[in-house]
């Protein structure tokens, strides 16, 4: 498990670095929101659910996507606007889909959609659950509280995973969030847990217990993880709203650094090489792939 966690987190880290590099080179169009520093949440949480459970994600979703699907070629192709991208090159970074993974770039909007998805599964007794990722910025959106209310009223098996990275773009939680984050779940009679860690093993074991609880009780859960976004909000962010000292302090709890203390240097190097090669291989392949054709722009507007 340990090595798998390390490998998955490193794959996400190197993928995000590759994306940053491609933007710098001018190979990518648009924008992206890297999750560097938050990899332990994606991997710890999503290694604890089944492949046919439901995941919804937000603008910062590459880590969630890779952790859940292990698909880097289709994601890279999507970001590069290729027809072989997971959404045919239509949707780019914020709107990725594969199997039972659904992302959208509207802050907090997917919490309602995920609630409906989990409700649909409950109505047919499929035993599938939903995991809805949101950030601290999403706490400002009213749709969250409507969703929490109905999830609790209707006993919907959904886990809201709040990744508090302390900043909504440039706005620190001290300026954006009143009161306690965890109490937001409790106010609706929803079981809640809050932890502050970038240790993937702790997140995984905590989340595994939560998943068991949700499946057994057929009830929602509100899980708060306090983590840190080492990267800027998006590719154009110079992080002028926080100090370099603060950033250095958080790097001490870097999720990869934590795990590196538990595996040998030899194993770490092997994994590093493997992940790096995988990404470069994917990039080399996708670069050659055909660009999407605008001839099919109308396709699929109506089903």
């Amino acid at each position: 498990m340990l090595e798998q966690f390390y490998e998955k987190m490193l794959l996400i880290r190197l993928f995000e670095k590759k994306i940053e590099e491609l933007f710098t080179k001018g190979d990518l169009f648009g924008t992206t929101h890297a999750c560097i520093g938050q990899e332990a949440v994606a991997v710890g949480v999503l290694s604890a659910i089944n492949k046919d459970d439901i995941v919804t994600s937000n603008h910062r979703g590459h880590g969630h996507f890779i952790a859940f699907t292990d698909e880097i070629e289709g994601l890279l192709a999507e970001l590069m606007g290729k027809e072989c991208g997971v959404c045919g090159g239509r949707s780019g970074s914020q709107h990725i889909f594969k199997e039972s993974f659904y992302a959208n770039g509207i802050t907090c909007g997917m919490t309602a959609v995920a609630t409906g998805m989990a409700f649909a599964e409950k109505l047919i007794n499929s035993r599938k659950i939903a995991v809805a990722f949101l950030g601290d910025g999403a706490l400002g959106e009213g749709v969250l509280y409507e969703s929490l209310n109905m999830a609790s009223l209707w006993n919907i098996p959904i886990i809201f995973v709040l990744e508090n990275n302390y900043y909504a773009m440039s706005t620190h939680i001290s300026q954006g969030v009143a009161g306690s984050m965890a109490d937001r779940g409790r106010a609706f009679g929803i079981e809640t847990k809050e932890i502050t860690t970038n240790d993937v093993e702790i997140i995984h074991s905590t989340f595994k217990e939560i998943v068991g609880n949700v499946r057994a009780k057929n009830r929602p859960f509100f899980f708060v993880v306090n983590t840190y976004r080492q990267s800027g909000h998006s590719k154009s962010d110079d992080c002028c709203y926080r100090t370099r000292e603060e950033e250095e302090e958080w790097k001490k709890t870097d999720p990869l650094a934590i795990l590196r203390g538990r595996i040998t240097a030899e194993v770490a190097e092997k994994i590093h090489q493997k992940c790096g090669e995988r990404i470069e291989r994917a990039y080399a392949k996708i670069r050659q792939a055909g660009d999407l054709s605008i001839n099919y722009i109308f396709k699929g507007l109506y089903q």
Partner: protein
Amino acid sequence: MMLTYGQSINQALNAILSKDKRVVLLGEDICDPYGGAFKITKGLSTKYPAQVINTPMSEYALTGIAAGMAIRGRRPVLEIMFGDFLTICADQLINHAAKFGWMYNSQVTVPMVLRTPMGGRRGYGPTHSQTLEKLFLGIPGLKVIAPSHFHDPGEQLIKAIDDNNVVLFIEHKLLYSRKVGELKDGYVFDFACKKSQDTFETITLSNNDFKEARATVLTYGGMLPYVIEAVNELLEEDEVFLEIVVPSYINNASIVEVLASLKKTGRLVIVEEGTLFNGWGAEMAARVVSEGFELLEAPITRVAAKDLPIGSTRVLEDAVLPQIIDIKVGIKEVLQ
């Protein structure tokens, strides 16, 4: 027995709930004994308790919940108590539900229906009387269906529920108590009637058996009863024969039936209950000019609500919403 518009919708929901267990009704106060603010869902929660769900007042999340349920295989039908509240649903409709199919490259479908009573003339004032569907007409991926009482509203609703797309289903609240017209020997009530072959059909009406006609009136939904009154009065007073074209799929780009009628009349009046500026009629007029300019013998006339909020007092409401006299004036103008 002739049904009212409201009964037609109620019976359609009853039939589809029984036939298709994927169908789930959601909405505020829709369960018995209340049966919905306009009583449209009366009796349904008693017969299908597992499929009819009372909700809190959370239109924003409910629209998203319906979208999520639809993606995962249910056929949700969400009732929004007043069409004015669609503003609260807008983000989920526009940025979520209507986007998923195209954005995810046809790998999901979102077969959801959002039904809502729309329109004024009941003295509910500025925030419960509006005709706001025009805000949703230019959203690719969203179908807006607004049947008149000459359509079969129940049948249109079943088609909307069976549709694999996001459908905004507009029911004018004044139509609920009106008898629904049945097509018999080519007639609906006193009008000769042709229905298009589309799933959500366009109806063409004539008060002269599709022979001579002097002008075409294009309208939809809750304006049709007013248009019919105006047309009847003009026939009696001035012996003017007219044709009326009534689509139900109001953001469909096709104007085939309008052009067919204009070939005969050359004159067009467009009537809607929404405000004039940036209205449905503006888009229809632009399409007619672009596709059928050579057919027009006179400028197009538009009849719509004044660009003002709707007052609660009857005299203010009447002054803002288009009346029978306004339609008659519009028709006379185009005949000059």
